[in-house]
């Protein structure tokens, strides 16, 4: 009979950019159980809210995660603004949406690259990261930073983008789109990619719902969950259309992300056409008194920021529920019954962001 083995996977592993550890219990080549162990990158930054006042804490919120840095500061600022009843100027809302969508493009492109590396397609990895650089150049010109933007603040944004630059960004994104179509084509039509991803890591619509999947993971299984539909920031003025696939396997997740890249580019174009003139921030006085849950759609799914204050400069409680955390139960379910060779693919198509999860 088959012999049982335990294969340790991680925390340091060639396909993982971040440390997460799994004990994979295998029978021959098949996995029968996966036991995750986390906390390799736990810093405890939620308690830092007691040591930094609520205006300074935006910089810490920016650094929860490097890939979705802007979304975290956006969620935190929204929560505080909602408690304090601050009316953010419309131009600032549009600018927030533009930066958020650009973040989504760069995060998805990075993910496509790393996923290609996981199934051994190294030239595709290099191409995806090459095409990511124009987006980072836009960040650098508009905010001064490449990864951690630090432009969101309570009451608005720190920097404005003038109308000529916005036009330039739209033109550059249109040029980028042509190159991305070629890249997307490889992911969608290439025989070896399809062979590697189709039918791997299947999760049904009901399972995805019961296990609480969010983001591209849920959308690839046919659930139409997209927080942008709630209409935070400027999304209420834009036509948001979630990309939904029904196959529920690794290939469908890949497809959802490729389609979202193009949709995000389209949203930036829409926002640049509709952005009104006006101020970009309002003055903030007083301190937050109350609590609020803010929900934001990150590249990986829905993130919740809970903020509670009692009228003092230092808030009482800050809590983040990140998308990877709600996707881990589904990941464990999918890992059971998979082949050992498919493990990197399955883990990476969930797009795990460990530093968000452990904070």
């Amino acid at each position, binding site marked *: 009979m088959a012999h049982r083995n335990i294969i340790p996977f991680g*925390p*340091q*592993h*060639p*396909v993982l*950019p*971040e*440390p997460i550890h799994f004990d994979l219990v295998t029978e021959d080549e098949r996995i029968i159980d996966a036991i995750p162990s986390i*906390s*390799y*990158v*736990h*810093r*405890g*930054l939620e*308690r*830092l809210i007691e*040591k930094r006042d609520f205006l300074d804490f935006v*910089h*810490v919120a920016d*650094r*929860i*995660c*490097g*890939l979705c*840095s802007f979304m975290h500061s956006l969620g935190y600022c929204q929560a505080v603004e909602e408690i304090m009843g601050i009316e953010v100027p419309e131009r600032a809302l549009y600018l927030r949406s533009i930066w958020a969508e650009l973040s989504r493009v760069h995060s998805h492109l*990075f993910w496509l*690259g790393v996923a290609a590396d996981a199934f051994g397609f190294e030239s595709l*990895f*290099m*191409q995806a*990261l*090459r095409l*990511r*650089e124009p987006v*980072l150049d836009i960040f650098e010109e508009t905010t001064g*930073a*490449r*990864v*951690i933007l630090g432009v969101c603040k309570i009451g608005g944004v720190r920097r404005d983008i003038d109308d000529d630059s916005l036009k330039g960004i739209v033109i550059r994104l249109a040029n980028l789109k042509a190159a991305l179509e070629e890249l997307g084509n490889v992911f969608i039509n290439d025989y070896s990619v399809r062979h590697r991803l189709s039918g791997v890591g299947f999760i049904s619509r009901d399972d995805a719902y019961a296990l609480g999947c969010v983001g591209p993971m849920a959308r690839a299984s046919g659930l139409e969950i997209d927080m942008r539909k709630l209409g935070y920031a400027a999304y209420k003025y834009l036509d948001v259309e979630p990309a939904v696939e029904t196959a529920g396997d690794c290939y469908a997740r890949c497809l959802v992300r490729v389609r979202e890249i193009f949709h995000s580019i389209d949203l930036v174009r829409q926002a640049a056409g509709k952005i009104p003139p006006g101020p970009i921030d309002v003055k903030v006085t007083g301190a937050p008194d109350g609590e609020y849950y803010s929900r934001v759609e990150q590249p990986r799914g829905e993130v919740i920021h809970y903020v509670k204050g009692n009228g003092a400069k230092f808030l009482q409680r800050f809590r983040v529920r990140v998308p990877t955390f709600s996707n881990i139960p589904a990941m464990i379910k999918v890992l059971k019954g998979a082949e050992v060779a498919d493990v990197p693919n399955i883990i990476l198509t969930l797009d795990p*962001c460990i*530093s968000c999860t452990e904070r």
Partner: protein
Amino acid sequence: MGWFRRSPWVLHYNATSCNGCDIELIASLTPLYDLERFGIMNTGNPKHADILAVTGSVNEKSRQVVQTLYDQMPNPKVVVAVGICATSGCVFQDCYNVLGGVDKVLPVDVYIPGCAARPEAIIDGVLKACDILEEKYAQWKKMRRQ
């Protein structure tokens, strides 16, 4: 900077980084910045590596991993602290689970500042690490001859 006699390989480990420096480190290995033109490659195996690039400060759990990775690397070896978190702790130095920079655990040879460290800075730091590696190699050879 002269030509290197060897082609040093980099092992990257994320101690408690926020991903910012990790993606910049990966960006510096990919076509636009291309560290590979110096013969420097990313590897996942500590036994093949000459340079250990650590991002983020260390915590109680990751210090063991960092120490194990360092012990597994063959001599001579160089440690590069990428980013301000790996240098001093950055905004997280007051957190309860952050011990501080990587130098609390390992002897660090090169510090690369920045939040997140820019690819240009990373390339500069890794090339400095290569020079230190050459020096260490020469010393090590001399010591073996005695």
